[in-house]
């Protein structure tokens, strides 16, 4: 990632270099006025996502997804006749994310902000959006708090939050009799998202007659889970709940298989990339997902085919969500014929529907700005049934059922403390 600001002030001859750059730019402006004007006509979108660290692998898919959407939109004539310019940078950590977001608005000419996977970074970008009264389409962070106590009217959330993931996996767990009267032991990622997830899981088990007998907080950079696996065996639970995130999930399932523990796994957060990275025969349990490349809708099939053509592998859920998020943003801009923050907010709050390549369309709930959409539980295919290395997840049916309202699996107004 090139940090333009740092580059500009570096070096002893910065003054002279700036002068030269300015001179060249000026000369170019005189020589090619048309090019310069079309450059400034672009709609600039500030896009931040983790490209390094424990969520970096997901960020790579996010960038692949938004690239396809950008090219498709621009090829079809752009938005209101203007090309989209998505400026992607590594958000690194919460502090850097907020600094970069502010710079994108102040200096880089970003009209709106998009992106994120890390809940803690999403939170700081949300603050930047509110302070500057600019729109932030929060794409991939899943903490409930972002849509609850920390919500603000400048931020809209695309991914399914903790509550929906718990409900999606929870329905399958109830069906298999793994909740009522069962004692569970959980491992929890030790940061904002993990704590949030642990709370949701605890509420779910308590509400359905299960009980917690242990919960370990795991630092995000832990790679060896063996001491925790021993503690699980010592506690002899009925179910092991995974409230982990990113690489943690992969490390956990690999070592769980290595030690051959037999307690069923109730997983509440898993991205397809983490599942793929687990390797043959290592993944087990019941997990939720927001989207999967085997989803049988015409839109998803077309997207998967295009993604495979370009990158030679199926898209991960973060590729899908970035793809549909940019399409959502483009639809809003086209419909309002504007990039104005207030007009875009009004459009989203009108609960306009968006095609998100699922069987049912999604819409942003007006009072807490979360996208209402289907979610899916999945299990792992029995050994020998996978067609290739991408295909070992047994994809479940969408919840809620087609005849139920989408809001059924989201937080209720009583549960959600969001006040705009």
């Amino acid at each position, binding site marked *: 990632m090139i940090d333009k600001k740092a580059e500009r002030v570096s070096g002893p001859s910065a003054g002279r270099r700036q002068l030269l750059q300015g001179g060249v730019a000026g000369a170019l402006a005189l020589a090619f006025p048309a090019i310069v004007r079309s450059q400034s006509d672009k709609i600039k979108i500030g896009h931040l996502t983790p*490209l*390094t*660290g424990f969520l*970096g*692998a997901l*960020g*790579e*898919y996010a960038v692949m997804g938004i690239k396809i959407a950008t090219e498709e939109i621009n090829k079809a004539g752009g938005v209101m006749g203007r090309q989209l310019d998505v400026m992607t940078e590594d958000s690194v950590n919460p502090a850097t994310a907020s600094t970069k977001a502010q710079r994108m608005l102040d200096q880089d000419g970003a009209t709106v902000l998009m992106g994120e996977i890390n809940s803690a970074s999403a939170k700081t970008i949300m603050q930047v959006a509110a302070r500057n009264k600019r729109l932030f389409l929060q794409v991939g962070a899943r903490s409930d708090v972002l849509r609850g106590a920390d919500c603000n009217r400048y931020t809209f959330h695309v991914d399914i939050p903790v509550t929906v993931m718990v409900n999606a996996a929870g329905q399958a767990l109830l069906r298999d009799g793994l909740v009522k009267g069962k004692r569970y032991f959980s491992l929890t990622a*030790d940061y904002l998202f993990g704590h949030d997830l642990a709370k949701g899981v605890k509420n779910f088990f308590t509400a359905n007659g299960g009980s917690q007998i242990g919960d*370990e*907080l795991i*630092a995000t*950079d*832990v*790679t*060896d889970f*063996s*001491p*925790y696996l*021993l*503690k699980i*065996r*010592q506690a002899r639970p009925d179910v092991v709940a995974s409230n982990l995130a990113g*690489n943690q999930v*992969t*490390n956990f399932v*690999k*070592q769980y*298989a*290595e*030690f*051959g*523990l037999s307690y069923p796994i109730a997983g509440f957060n898993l991205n397809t*990339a*983490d599942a*793929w*990275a*687990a*390797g*043959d*025969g*290592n993944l087990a349990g019941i997990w939720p997902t927001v989207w999967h490349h085997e989803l049988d809708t015409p839109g998803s099939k077309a997207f998967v085919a295009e993604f495979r053509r370009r990158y030679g592998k199926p898209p*991960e859920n973060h590729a899908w969500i970035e793809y549909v998020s940019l399409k959502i943003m483009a639809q809003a801009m086209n419909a309002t014929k504007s990039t104005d923050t207030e007009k875009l907010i009004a459009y989203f709050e009108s609960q306009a529907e968006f095609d998100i390549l699922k069987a049912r369309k999604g819409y942003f709930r007006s009072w807490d700005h979360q996208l209402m959409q289907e979610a899916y539980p999945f299990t792992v295919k029995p050994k020998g049934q996978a067609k290739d*290395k991408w295909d070992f997840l047994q994809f479940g049916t969408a919840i809620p059922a087609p005849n139920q309202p989408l809001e059924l699996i989201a937080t209720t107004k009583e549960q959600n403390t969001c006040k705009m």
Partner: protein
Amino acid sequence: MQVFFLLEQVVNGLVLGGYYLLIALGLSLIFSVGGVVNLAHGAFYALGAYISLEIAKVLGFGAGAALSPIAVALLGMLFERFLLRRFYAADPILSLLVTFGLALIVEQAIRMIWGAAPLPASMPAGLKGPVILGEFMFSRYRLLLLAVVAVVLAGIWFLIHRTSFGRVVRAGIQRPDMVAALGIRLQPYMTTIVMLGVGMAALGGALFAPITVVHPAMGAEIIIVAFVVVVIGGLGSFWGVVLAAFLVGVVRGVTIHFVPAAGEASMYVLMFLVLMFRPRGLLGERIEKFE
């Protein structure tokens, strides 16, 4: 029962210590002989994992684990010959910067070649599962890993303490000037030490690939632990590093047993305590050139 649970964590910590040792011993050897802190050591560990997966695709898991360290050792030879060699006599800050830069370059190169998404890696199904001894549970795979570490350790010990090669290396650690005065060039010895060191790191990467996430930054994750082990063990001491590796593994396990939240901080507290009472590390020798 509580005592038994604790004992189980201690034994598991020892197993984990064996794995730390594989990475830390090479780091310690390179530092002791060349006076260079090789911050790129983790990068060789990561390369070991990635290359083993490539080999395993064609020749299977065992061949991957056996051949990848050799391939990485050859890379290590180039690294020593063309880069590291220039910095033995220089200000330590230069070698720190160079090896740190190399670590970043390798990490990014891995990202460019294999992608940022972690690669799937599995062990042969026969190695999976627990071994139950009385009330104790071990991972079969980790016991195998420990056996490999023991063999490697014995080999290195023999090489350093019972061969003419080792005599020169040990003399070179203490008095490189005297070795030179006797007409012995230390450079080929140093090349061999670097090859052995990074080869061991690569073996660690290859053996740990099936049970951890294989991703570009995996080297950065391990280098800190390895460094802590070397500091606790003390420079120039073979047994110091061995002791420290097992100690760090056990202290982490025991801490997680009692205060899980402090598990990852425990090794730094241990390092702090050791350095307070023994500034040269547990079994660190007085090495004149570093004083």
